[in-house]
Structure formats: C-alpha cells, structure tokens
C-alpha cells in the first residue's frame, strides 16, 4: 500500500491549487472548475482515511460530496449562463454589484 502521507500530500496540493485558482482567476467557469478541484481534493483525503481506518463512513461521505459537486456544477453553470446573458461577460470582477 502506498504511504497514506503521500496521498494526503497530493490531496493538499490539489486543494491548494483549487484555492489559488478561486482566488486568482477571473473567469467564472475556471473558478467553478477550481471549486471542483477542492472538492475532489477532499474526496481523495476521505478515501485515504477510509483505507487507513478500514471503515465505510468516509466512503459514504465521498458519495455525498460527489452528488453535491454535480448539483453545484449544474446550479453554478446555470448561474454563469444567466449572468452571461445579462452582462455579456463571465468576468467576476465585472460583477461587483453586491457591495456598499
């Protein structure tokens, strides 16, 4: 079996990539993809722990996360399309109405 620390390290790296993407990218779709990255980094960590502690609970969580990710992608993409129709762009810096 692979050393779980290595797998967790990959998971953490994936998560960091996702966070960096969310914080730095402007395109709404890229940001959604980065969110997917973070979710899957979480999934990877869950699976690792499932193997490590030999129990089903973590695997169940993974299924939850996957469902959630699918729903999130559907809703997120719908919002992005609606936004694009409204403003003609998917650049999140252009969409800054929610402020003082």
């Amino acid at each position, binding site marked *: 079996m692979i050393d779980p620390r290595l797998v967790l390290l990959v998971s953490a790296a994936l998560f960091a990539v996702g966070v960096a993407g969310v*914080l730095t990218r402007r395109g709404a779709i890229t940001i959604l993809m980065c969110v997917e990255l973070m979710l899957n980094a979480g999934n990877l960590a869950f699976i690792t722990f499932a193997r490590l502690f030999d129990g089903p609970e973590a695997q169940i969580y993974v299924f939850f996360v996957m469902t959630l990710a699918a729903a999130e992608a559907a809703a997120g993409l719908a919002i992005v399309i609606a936004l694009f129709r409204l403003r003609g762009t998917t650049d*999140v810096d252009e969409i*800054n109405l*929610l402020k003082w």
Partner: protein
Amino acid sequence: MLTLIWLIPILPLAGVAINGLLGRRLPKAAVGLIGCGVILASLLLSVGAVVELAKLPADARHFETSLGTWMPLGELAPGGAGVTIDWGFALDPLSAVMILVVTGVGFLIHVYSVGYMEHEEGFARFFVYINLFMSMMLTLVLGSNLLVTFVGWEGVGLCSYLLIGFFYDRPFDERTGLSCADAGRKAFLVNRIGDFAFVIGMLYLITTFGTLEYRGVAEAIEAGAGGHALLVAVGILLFIGACGKSAQIPLYVWLPDAMAGPTPVSALIHAATMVTAGVYMVTRMSTLYVHAPEAMAVIGLVGAATAIFAATMGITATDIKKVLAYSTVSQLGYMFAAAGVGAWTAAIFHLMTHAFFKALLFLGAGSVIHGQHGEQDITRMGELRVKLPVTFATFVTGALAIAGIFPLAGFFSKDEILWGAFSSGHRVIWLMLALAAGLTAFYMFRLTFLVFYGRYRGDYHAFEHAHESPKSMTVPLMVLAALSVIGGWIGVPAALTRGADVNLFHHWLAPAVASGAHEAAEGAAHGAGTELSLMALALAVALVGIGAAWVIYRRRRGLADSIAAAFRPVYILWRNLYWVDELYEAAVIRPFYAVSRFSAGFDKWVIDGLVNLSAILTDIVGQLLKLFQTGYVRNYALLFLMGVVVVLLFLATV
C-alpha cells in the same frame, strides 16, 4: 320614583347621543325639541322623586341607590377592611334642592337657548354640550360619595371648557388679547389647580376613613375618627378645590373670561349651577367643617373678601356680561362666607335664589345683546327700555332681587347670611358683607341705568333695528322673574312673622346639614329686635347703593367721570382689575414657561442627545465595516479562507 333617581343624570345623555350622532342632519326644531325634551324629562322625574322624598318623615329623608361597584380597592391598610367605591346616588333634602334648581333653571335656559342660538353655527353642537353638562351636573349633586361627585365635577369642567370656547374662532378680550378658545383653556387650567387639592383631600379621606361615602365619612367624624389637624387639612384642601370651581380668591380669574361663551352658557354654567358646585360640596361636607373650625374661618374670610373684592371690579366693568360675572364671583363669596360662619342653610338658600335672579339677569343681558346684534359694551347702550320692554321689566326685577330689596328673593337669602354672620359673632365678616351688599346694589343699578335709560350712545341704526326677543326667550325670562320675586318666600325668618316659625327652607334642609354651632335659627335667642334692625340696615344699604347709582348715572350727567378723575388711582386699579392677571402672568405663568423651556431644552439636547449619540456611533462603525464589502467574490473567498485558517490554527493549539 325614588329608585329611579339614577335616571335623572342619565336622561340628558340620551339627548347627547341623539343630537351628537344625528344633530347635523336633523332640522333645528327637532334638535331643540330633543335638547329641551330630555331636560324636561329629568325635571319631571326630579319633581316626582322629591315629592316622594317629602312624604317621608323628616329624619328618614335619605335615599341611596347604587348602580353597582365601581372600584373594588381591597385593603388600603394591612389588615384593614376591604374598601369599595360604588356608583352610588343619593337623594336627601340637600341634593333635592340642587336637582330642582339645576333641572328647573336648566330647562328654562334650554328653552331660551333655542331662540338665542337660532342664528349661530353649531346649533346641534351647542345642545350636545349643554345636555352633557346637565348630565354631569346632576351626577355631581346626586353622587352619594365624593368620587362620583368628582366625576361630575370634572365633567362639568370639561363642558365648561367646551362651551366657553364654543366660538373658538372668535377673538374675545382686547385688553389681554385672549381668544374664545384661550378663555376656555384658561378656565380649564385654573380649575386644575383646585382639582389637584381636591384629589389630595379625597386621598386623605379614603386612607383615613376607608370610605368616600358622604354618610360614612360624616358618621366616622362624628364618632371621633381622624385627628383634628387632619380634618382641618382635608377641609382646606377640599375648599381649595371649591375655590377653583366656584371662582374664589385666588382662583377666580377664569370666571370673567368665561364670558366668552354664549350667554345662555354664562347663565346656566357660570352663574346658576356649575360655579355653585363648590358651595354645594362644602355644605355636603358640613360635618367635617364643623369639626374643623379653622378651615371654616378660612372659608368665611376668603368668601367675604371675594364678595367685596369682586364687587369693586364690577363697578368699573363696561362689558354687560363682565359686570354680571364679577357680580357672580361676589355672590359666590357671599355663599362661602355663609358656609364659613356655619349658616349652611343660608348658603344653600342664597345659592337657590341666586340661581333664579342671576340666570334671569344673564338671560336678560343675552336678550339685550341678541336684540342689538351682538353689542356688549354698556357705554354704547342706553334707552333700551323703549325697544325691549319685557327684557327691561324682567331685568329690573332681577336687579332689585340681587340688590336685596324687600320682598324679593335676594332680600331673604342675603339677610339670612348677614344675620348668620352677625349672630355667630363674625362682626368683621358681617361688615364686609354689608358693604358688598351696598356695592352690589350700586353696580347693578349702574348697569340698569346705563343699558335701559338715558340716550342711546351707540350707532343710531343699531338702535333703530334693536328688537325684542322671540317668545322662546321672553317666556323663560318671565318665569325666572316670577321665581326671583317669590323664591325667597319659602325661607321667611321668624323675626318677620312675630315668631311664627314659617322658615320652610330651613326645616327642609336641616336634617341634611351638620347643625352648626351658630345656625341662623338660633337668632331667636339674640332677640328678634336685633334681627329686624339689621334687616332694616341691610335694606337701607341697598337703597343707598341704588340711590348713589341713580344720582351718578341718571341725575347728574358727567358726575361719573369727575368721580373717576378725582379717585384716579382707585379707578385705574379697578379698571385694570387690580392687575391680578398681570401678577399671575409674572409670578406663575412666566416662571412656569421658563421651567418648561428649560425642560424642553434638556429633553432636546441631553435626552435626545444620548439617543442620537448611540445612533451616530453605530453609523460610524457601520461606515468602517462596510469597507470590507468590496463586491469582489475573490475578496470574500480570501477572507473566508483566512477565517478557516485562523479557526484551524486555534483548534490545533487547543
């Protein structure tokens, strides 16, 4: 019918309801008919009840009924008996006299008002107010305890306010710049001062005796409950309340300004009934006062001083209604002086005869004003006996009655008061009252001569168009004139009948009032001769007053002016009403305004300032915090991330 006495004050309320709700749509005739009808019903019921009361033996003439408990107060003192206050009504000889006077004179004035108010705006409104007044006044006199009386007391005060300000959009007094609405407010506010003392007096009574029932309080006092100091204090507090309502020094200032109301109102409320409520209440509490001679001394002196003080102001007044207003204040002083020397029956007797002749005089004045389309200045009248013969004849009757000319009503009642003061040893009060009697005769006949005799001094056209009033006004005048003549005959003193005891009024009222130490009836002991010579003296004083008025205002034209010039300081003092209004303005109203302004400033800057400060602080914090809300999702995500990192670090360290 005795069990129905609670209906007497309720019936006028029916008129209030009908005219108040439908009055605008009903024709004037219907409004007048309803307004007078309900009072007539009350009058008939009152007569029925009093007749039934009179059939009982003298000692049993006290009937009480209750409409139920008003306030169950529980125990006022730990372990004390439970205290309740009822909606109680009582009919005894004293309240019998009062309800007959109130409904009788009230009915005549209602009839008169139909004619007098015919051309005025707010005809229905007038009848609503005045019917409400009747209801409250009857509550006041029929209440079996002080609190029910107080309900009526405040109710009549409210109606007085509403009716003084009836012509709320008209100016009233040029000297003080008062409008009619201001005059109403003044009356209301001055009365508050008296009512304040009244309430404190009631609180003392209920905490001491555990009841406010007149009977219960009287019985407790007779049994010796309550300390002497307490009785004196309560007596004086209640008297201050009476001072407000009955316009005695120092709270009389509102009554002359109350003349801003329509004349029937002045006759009914500010002459015949409401202002006598104080005298009624003091007489009602006679048992208390007999046990508090110091309070009685105060009442006697204040009354006598008011009698003479107001009379002097009546001499120089030039408004026909103001002369009568000062006369009313003066006559009320008479009644209080009578109460103060213990001549309770004389006080109520004078209250009754005064209601007749002063209502008559006011209604006569109203007829004069009505006949000349609103002129009230007597220096612009004259010769009106030609144009207003009925008004003239009845007015002179009233003037003779108030002057105390034998055998009119005023003679008997005034004489009984003078005799009461003299025989009880209050020589100073007697002297003041005798002097006031002379002044009364003088200013009443000054008024009569200036209005009805001599040449007309106003606009010639106004005189041409002057007309006698309609029947609905002259008939009440005639009835009141008749009452002013014969009203005194029910109280003829024994001295005039060679000892035959025919003083019906005295015997009727005796069971209802405390037997004062110095009742006028004990005059027999002092000798009828003294009483007869005092009577002759009083009559002479009145005749001198009339004679002086005749000389000054009829015989020697211009004499009035030269007298005024000769006694210029006195004249100026009286013309300016002793500057009492100005004194109150400087001593009470201005300091009060200063305090009010200070309080308003404190409220605005300190209290409101604290509230505003907290709002400003919240705003500043919000202004700072809103800078975090940039609208960029990235910023939010970053903050979120930082928050997560902080939480994780915290969890890791714990």
